[in-house]
């Protein structure tokens, strides 16, 4: 029933691929290293190297994808049910024979640098490298003139290299290496304008919070090694399926792995770093916090489906946390005035959706449900990457035009002066809201279908899944509402442009101007007296926007629609991804649930209509509502005070402990050491008077010493 997990069959099409695999992480890495070393030399041309490297990685990804696609296309036709997989090992790093690893473990250790490509990986690679290349191109315009230009591109290239490594890993160690790499590059990029205290703080917060998750992931990896004796995916999952490991063990391992995913993908309670991460440049937000790094967690859980499948309790936890994050973030996004924050919370919410989907992959619903749920989550990851990156880049375009002002209270009516940005943002907003027949609609709907199926299994937690279904639909409504609230606030209404827009627009560098994300109250609230005709961004920024818009529009329909049309089955996304080793193979294809589609379309349109009502027709209404809702409004605006709670519960005690230990060290340990260090001096002082300069004394001392020796030794004869 389950796919054999070893790469037992490799059609001849695939063998040449193995030689190409190393290029995908290495090309961007090379660019990163070169830019880091030669940054001061290349300066203005840094973007060429980065874009070229990432573009080349994309080309190689396509070259790898095509034969793989061909192999999958013919998968079930030849009676061959083994999903294609290409694995290439490069370097046997640590090899210890079983029994010699110490700690009483019978398991050996065989960790090597090995890369693999299967359907899931190929899909991720295409998405990552394509979007990253577009964003790198966009950044050439956005970051123009910034003193740290080369550093930016070095970090971005490094990030892409690490992300590629992460998805191409064939064992948990390489995965962890890529995992840490993206965390590091994320830190470097969030804190890119490090002289700004808020940015430095945000970078640190992101790093520390994800670190918590990383510890969990590492412990989970160790548990898996302990339980199965290996660290390579295929071997681990095969051993897990054989059984023999206890429920609590599997549950703990699964939850620990999920902890890592929760950290990187900002799920509750480790979600607090993502909104603050908006302090980084907007292309960074687009790349890392929409399309790639935050999706690493989803990828990890999808990859570890064979593990999670065995533990329904863990699945339920994932679903519950995902669903809760989704609605929490949606509620907060309702009242934010910083456009990027709205998008950040919407990312949180959509990630919650993805985990909700993954959490529905219970065996209780049979292998069809597992396949549906995982494919749905991964599909939503794919579409979300495109439209969220689009939205962030469009927001960046707005920022670029408005002189780095992103507070929606300071501008409006921008559709008149930024037509292209407006159009692409609208496309992104529609897709995010789940407007029927756009890509977001298809992917969100698949997740809803998975949740519904999970709630109908009648087994463990079925009622919880039903509750989550309700939550998910409510969240869909809220998503549409806050997305279009942001859209209408920004692009509709009277034309208002902040004064900074006229100063900074042009060829001036962005340097240290990366400020003003809506929460600072001290900037001068001054509108521009004479708005220009156009604040549109240069072509190097708008072209990627257009490309992404096209994809956001089309990719969903293209890939999901034909799912049921068996005639064009070959193009189906699901058909491709479901051929991943680890997922059940022989499941029946998914049938569309028309009722659910109608319901989700309905709530989306309802949300858009409500936003139109509140922000275009009756602009005074939101204020009145906010006042009447009072406390609720405050809670939403202030992020439910979670940051403050964490500060009191975690940060302050730790700081206190650190102070205590520092005092102990200073007064305890140091004092002891100093005392020990004075002992030889003191002893030396004792013997000093012997050296009194009198030769008679010296001779006497010599004789005395001699006598002592003689007496002592002769006596002991």
């Amino acid at each position, binding site marked *: 029933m389950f796919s054999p997990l070893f790469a037992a069959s490799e059609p001849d099409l695939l063998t040449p691929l193995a030689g190409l695999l190393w290029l995908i992480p290495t090309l961007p890495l090379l660019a990163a290293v070169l830019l880091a070393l030669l940054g001061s030399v290349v300066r203005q041309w840094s973007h060429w190297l980065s874009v070229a490297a990432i573009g080349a990685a994309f080309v190689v990804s396509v070259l790898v994808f095509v034969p793989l696609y061909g192999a999958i296309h013919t998968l079930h036709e030849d009676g061959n049910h083994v999903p294609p997989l290409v694995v290439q090992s490069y370097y046997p790093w640590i090899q210890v024979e079983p029994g010699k690893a110490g700690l009483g473990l019978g398991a050996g250790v065989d960790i090597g640098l090995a890369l693999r490509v299967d359907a899931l990986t190929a899909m991720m690679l295409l998405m990552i490298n394509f979007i990253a290349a577009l964003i790198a191109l966009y950044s050439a315009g956005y970051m123009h003139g910034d003193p740290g230009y080369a550093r930016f591109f070095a970090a971005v290239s490094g990030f892409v290299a690490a992300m590629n490594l992460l998805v191409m890993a064939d064992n948990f160690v390489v995965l962890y290496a890529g995992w840490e790499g993206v965390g590091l590059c994320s830190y470097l990029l969030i804190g890119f304008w490090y002289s700004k205290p808020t940015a430095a703080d945000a970078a640190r917060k992101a790093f520390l919070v994800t670190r918590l998750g990383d510890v969990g992931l590492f412990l989970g990896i160790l548990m898996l090694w302990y339980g199965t004796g290996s660290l390579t995916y295929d071997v681990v999952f095969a051993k897990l399926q054989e059984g023999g490991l206890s429920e609590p063990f599997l549950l703990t391992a699964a939850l620990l792995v999920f902890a890592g995913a929760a950290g990187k993908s900002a799920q509750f309670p480790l979600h607090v770093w993502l909104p603050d991460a908006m302090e980084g440049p907007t292309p960074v937000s687009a790349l890392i916090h929409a399309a790639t790094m935050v999706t690493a967690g989803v990828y990890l859980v999808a990859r570890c489906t064979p593990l999670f499948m065995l533990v329904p309790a863990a699945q339920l936890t994932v679903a519950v946390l995902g669903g809760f994050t989704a609605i929490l973030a949606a509620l907060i996004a309702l009242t934010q005035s910083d456009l990027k924050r709205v998008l950040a919370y919407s990312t949180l919410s959509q990630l919650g959706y993805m985990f909700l989907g993954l959490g529905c992959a219970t065996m209780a619903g049979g292998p069809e449900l597992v396949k549906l749920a995982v494919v749905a989550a991964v599909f939503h990851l794919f579409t979300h990457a495109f439209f969220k990156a689009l939205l962030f880049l469009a927001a960046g375009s707005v920022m670029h035009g408005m002189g780095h002002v992103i507070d929606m209270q300071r501008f409006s009516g921008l559709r008149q002066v930024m037509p292209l940005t407006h159009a692409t943002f609208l496309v992104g907003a529609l897709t995010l809201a789940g407007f029927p027949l756009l890509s977001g609609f298809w992917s969100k709907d698949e997740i809803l279908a998975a949740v519904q199926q999970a709630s109908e299994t009648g087994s463990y937690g079925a009622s919880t899944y039903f509750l989550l279904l309700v939550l998910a639909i409510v969240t869909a409504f809220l998503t549409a509402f806050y997305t279009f609230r942001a859209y209408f606030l920004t692009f509709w209404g009277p034309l208002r442009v902040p004064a900074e827009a006229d100063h900074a627009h042009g060829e001036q560098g962005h340097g240290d101007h990366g400020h003003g994300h809506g929460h600072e109250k001290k900037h001068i609230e001054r509108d521009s007296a004479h708005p220009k005709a156009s604040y549109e961004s240069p072509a190097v920024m708008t072209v990627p926007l257009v490309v992404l818009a096209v994809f956001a529009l089309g990719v969903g329909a293209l890939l999901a629609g034909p799912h049921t049309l068996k005639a064009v089955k070959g193009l189906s996304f699901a058909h491709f991804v479901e051929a991943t080793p680890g997922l059940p193979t022989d499941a029946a294809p998914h049938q569309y649930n028309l009722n659910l589609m109608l319901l989700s379309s309905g709530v989306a349109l309802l949300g858009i209509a409500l936003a139109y009502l509140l922000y275009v027709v009756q602009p005074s209404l939101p204020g009145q509502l906010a006042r009447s809702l009072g406390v609720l409004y405050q809670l939403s605006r202030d992020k439910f005070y979670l940051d403050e709670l964490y500060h009191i519960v975690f940060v302050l005690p730790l700081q206190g402990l650190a102070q205590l230990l520092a005092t102990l060290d200073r007064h305890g340990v140091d004092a002891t050491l100093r005392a020990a260090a004075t002992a030889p001096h003191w002893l*030396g002082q004792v*013997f000093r008077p012997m*050296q009194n300069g009198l*030769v008679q004394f010296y*001779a006497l001392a010599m004789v005395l010493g*001699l006598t002592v020796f003689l007496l002592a*030794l002769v006596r002991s*004869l």
Partner: protein
Amino acid sequence: MELHANLAAALGGFVWQLLPETVLCLAACLLFLAGTFRLPRTMYGILALVSLAGAMLALIVVWRRVPFVAEAGEADLVNALRYAAPVTFTPLGLLFKNLALITGVLLVLLGWDEGGESSGEYHACLLLITAGISLVGSANDLLTLFLALELVSIPTYLLLYLPHVTPASQESALKYFLLSIFSTGLLLFGFSYLYGLTGTLNIPRIVETLAAAQAVGLNPAEASAPWRGLVLVALVMIVAGLGFKITAVPFHFYAPDVYQGVSTPAAALLAFVPKVVGFAALLKLLGFTGTDATLNALGTQVPVLLWIMAAVTMTLGNLLALWQSNLKRLLAYSSVAHAGYMLIGLAVAPRLVATPDGIGSALGGVEATLFYLGAYGAMTLGAFAVLHLLSQNGRSVETEDDLVGLGKTHPRMALAMTLFLLSLIGIPLTAGFAGKALLFFEALGVNSGKLEGLTKEQAAQAAEQARLYGYLALIGAINAAIAAWYYLRLLGAMYLREAIEPVPPLKQSPALVTLGLCVVLTLTLGMVPGLWLGPIQKALRPGFNSSGLTQAPGGPDGLVAPR
């Protein structure tokens, strides 16, 4: 008849072995004579160098012509040479001859401008000292050994006095002289007891007799306590007498005062040469140059004495050095401490168990000591050379304050001094580290291997001894850490403080060659210790040196008496 003729020829041929020493002594006489002519000073130096070169040539001739005593011919001839000749040509002797000539060159270059009007006599004394060192290496009986030791000591007295006659140097020279003859008296007393106990002056014979008797004496039923008591007295006296030379505690008192009072090149000589001859003589007399069997000559007590001396010497030297601000006194105490480290090797040697293939691993301790001797020579001569070079133009660099700011005013000198200080501390990649590592590893290697065929008590005893020598290594390590403080203080003075009174620029001087050679040696011995360790190991092969005893299987009993 034929045997006797061969013997006579062989015995007579020993004169050939003394060719290098003869060259040096003749040259010395020439220099003494030339000294009366008041030639320009550099002439004397050049003459000294030429004669050293001649001695090297002579050494090559000897090496080619004269076979090592163990390879001289038939057993009868070998025995005759070994047990009758006053000097024998052994690999260890050759090693010391080479060491002597290199030291001679270094010291002549260092003291090029010394001596004022008596420069000729100064260099002549240096040549005589060099001859003495090389004679110590080949000495085969007590008289020759004593002669060689005095050949080193007496010119040293002169040398300390000659360079500049100040009250300080007069006092130092006199102190050294008085205490030196006192210790020589102790040494002679020990020699006399040895002669009385064994009836011969020949060193290999003495050592073997003692070893055999001690072995017998280890069996309680046949103990001869009065005899062993007398042996103990003799050995302790010898250690005391030689302990003066190697500045072991409690015979070290002269070192700080004398080093401080005499001129820097003379202090450099004092820091190194007596140690060389002292350790050479100790090696010969205490049976360290034979096989494991000859080490029994030490009995059970003398190793304990050596252990205590090593520990006390290291500790006292380092503790007192902490308080010194005068650089020469500091280096004097440091040389005391280093003597302590070297004694670790000797203390350990009797306890290292030989491997079954007959290669005495007790030699590991001796090798370590000899290696450290060479390394120590390079770093100490180098340090003194730096001080000497900085002390020109009438301003002597005596105290720590004189070194302040050297990093800026004389960067290359400071760098050289840094290297020597790091080597004295024992930082890796320097000779000092290699030496210390060898010594400590030997100490930790006592009874660490598998000991076969031991009873339970013997095994327990072996473990106990292993622990004791582990403590010695521990004391050594702690001392190295304590010593780091005063060396680092000098480093800090050179680089971290501003010069109060900057040292004037250096004059060109041949002493720079000494400095350069010491730098090269310190680095080379640190990074490729095998270059020095290899020759030492080859020189110490058992049976080639002072004893003809073969390795007895299974332990100290069952010696094979020479025919």
